[in-house]
């Protein structure tokens, strides 16, 4: 799947930048540690927007396109931030045959975002995951650490409403 690039404004802090430069300082003599730096950067920022990738490229002395190429090749790197609430729908085999696909589409439609995207207000993001080991409850989804099981599309509105604080 082609990765979606977030249009949300970058909200990085001076503290996050300090942390990133510390990481880069540790690894910059070894270009083969680019991915290590990217992983740690994602832990600091939650995702890898252009501002962060540019800092990594400059710090590691590699072209920005190289960083972007790696970021789009590996599924673990995100180009969109996670929302305050991350809705993760299990699309593993058991959940899928129990209608998780419809569930995913309904949430996508309701929030107006696709996979790995974040709503403009930064509240909700949506991801598809593989099995979370709760097949007995299929189909399942999680909202941050809350797990919801045995769902139908009619449950979607009620679940999302709980996070309207």
């Amino acid at each position, binding site marked *: *799947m*082609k*990765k979606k*690039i977030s249009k949300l404004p970058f909200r990085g802090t001076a503290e996050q930048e300090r942390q990133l430069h510390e990481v880069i300082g540790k690894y910059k003599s070894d270009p083969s540690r680019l991915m290590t730096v990217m992983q740690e950067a994602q832990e600091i920022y939650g995702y890898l927007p*252009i501002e962060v*990738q*540019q800092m990594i490229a400059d710090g590691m002395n590699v*072209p*920005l*396109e*190289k*960083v*972007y*190429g790696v970021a*789009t*090749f590996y599924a673990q790197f995100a180009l969109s931030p996670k929302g305050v609430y991350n809705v993760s729908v299990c699309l593993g085999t058991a959940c899928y045959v129990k209608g998780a696909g419809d569930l995913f589409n309904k949430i996508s439609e309701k929030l107006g975002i696709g996979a790995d995207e974040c709503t403009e207000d930064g509240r909700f993001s949506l991801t598809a995951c593989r099995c979370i080991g709760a097949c007995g409850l299929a189909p399942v989804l999680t909202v941050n650490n809350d797990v919801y099981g045995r769902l139908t599309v009619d449950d979607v509105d009620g679940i999302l409403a709980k996070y309207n604080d």
Partner: protein
Amino acid sequence: MEMINCKINGIAVSVPKGSTILEAARYAGVDIPTLCFLKDINEIGACRICVVETTGARGLVTACVYPVAEGMEVQTNSAKVQAARRTTLELILSTHDKKCLSCVRSNDCELQKMCRDYGVEMAEKYDGFRPTYELDLSTAHLVRDNNKCILCRRCVAACRQQFVSVIGANDRGIDTHIGTPFEKQLADVPCVSCGQCEVVCPTGALVEKDDTGKVWDALADKSKTVIVQTAPSIRATLGESFGMPIGTNVEGKMVAALRRLGFDKVFDTDFGADMTIVEEATEFVDRVKNGGVLPMITSCSPGWVKFAEYYYPDQLDHLSSCKSPQQMTGAIIKTYYAEKNGLDPKDIVVVSIMPCTAKKFEVGRDDQDAAGVADVDVALTTRELARMIKRAGLDFVNLPDEEFDNPLGDDTGAAVIFGATGGVMEAALRTANDVLTGKDNEALEFHEVRGTDSIKEATYNIAGMEVKVAAVSGIASANYVMSRIKDGTAPWHFVEIMCCPGGCVNGGGQPIQPASVRNFTDLKALRAKALYDQDEAMALRKSHQSPAVKMVYDEYLGSYGSHKAHEILHTSYTGRKKYN
């Protein structure tokens, strides 16, 4: 040298140790097809077109990177090999936009040739998801059509060789495509417009933006005086587009063809090159005498200038303020020549034939409008001119040799060698030596700055002064020079920088030679030789001796570096943001 004995299709050959099967096959007179392989640039063994059968390996191996071993027996064209190549071609075609009828690369497309050679049909054999991409038309010099891309990555390697690396492989699997960081338009990333990606592309995925329509329109407009100028290196390369051997000098036929296309005047950018030299040498002498910024760096190459503007915006005062020969020729046509002939500059269309895609960018730059209108209206590449000649039905190879028009068709040997790396430096040294010593010196050739090496350094004693020079080609080497300047360790007084490796003879606008030729031929050296041969045969070999240059200064500009010369022949530079 240790030699390896092996057999290619039963033919015994002895090749140097370390040779690949692809190289060994050449000794046996066998051509193995390749797509992704470009010698020294892209050796990744990815496309699997060059697969062969060999003893000592279970499956098929990629000939482009597999070294030969003692006693090895290779089959390059067995049934198994042919079947594998055919399948690979079918899979490549399954996502290829097969618009061969109108594709500008039709007939010199490496994929098309291979499909023809292997009898692979254009029919849709494989159904399924086929990614489609929008064209990137954002730049003045390039059309990027990923629908025709076969992901060989030759362009990525060429862009990396040119240091900027603004394109690479993004995403993965069926979504893999060649793109820029964050899928930006090419105009919004620090692409220097060199076009090296275009000359290595095996298909029509990367082609120059075609401006021939503008030229046909101008030629048909009776109210316009359409004047063409041709860059020094074009005469050494245009013949390739008509099947002539690499390194054939076709100056006379080129002039004849341009006249038959209907241009009102056929002038020579060599004139502008000679102008550039006298202005640049004057500027250099002035900087040396008056404590100006050194090293001074040449500014003829718009790709190099654009690179400096992106990457070293705080060092731009090292660049000579001289316009490039293309722009100087255009500026003189629209000022001096227009006044002399009672023409309104607005009714003149100046078309330039350039080895270069960045020239398309340069014509649209700010501060390139001496007469209040653009100095040059349209910049065509060598390839576009070849297409115009073909469309006009001219039998190029059998055209008579004709001479450039007066007065801006005069040239010197100094101008001719502008097309090769080191040529501008050598031309400038010839003039600076005469100007500083005040006499007509014998030492015409500065061999240390010749040749295709990316960095050449020399020290010359000119009028009792030690002048340290460097001639540099390719952006990676340009970056090295700039980093030395930035950290204060640059030893040079005068540096020539050309954007493309080997200089303009290897420019991004030159005729395309397939990988099968590029991998085994030194294009740069063969093409440059045609220019140095012409220089040697010429009576006038110093720019300041050009009759046209003398006339323009006597009648119009006054002295070298005069106020008027500065207004017409000099320009300015601006820092650019890398990513927008």
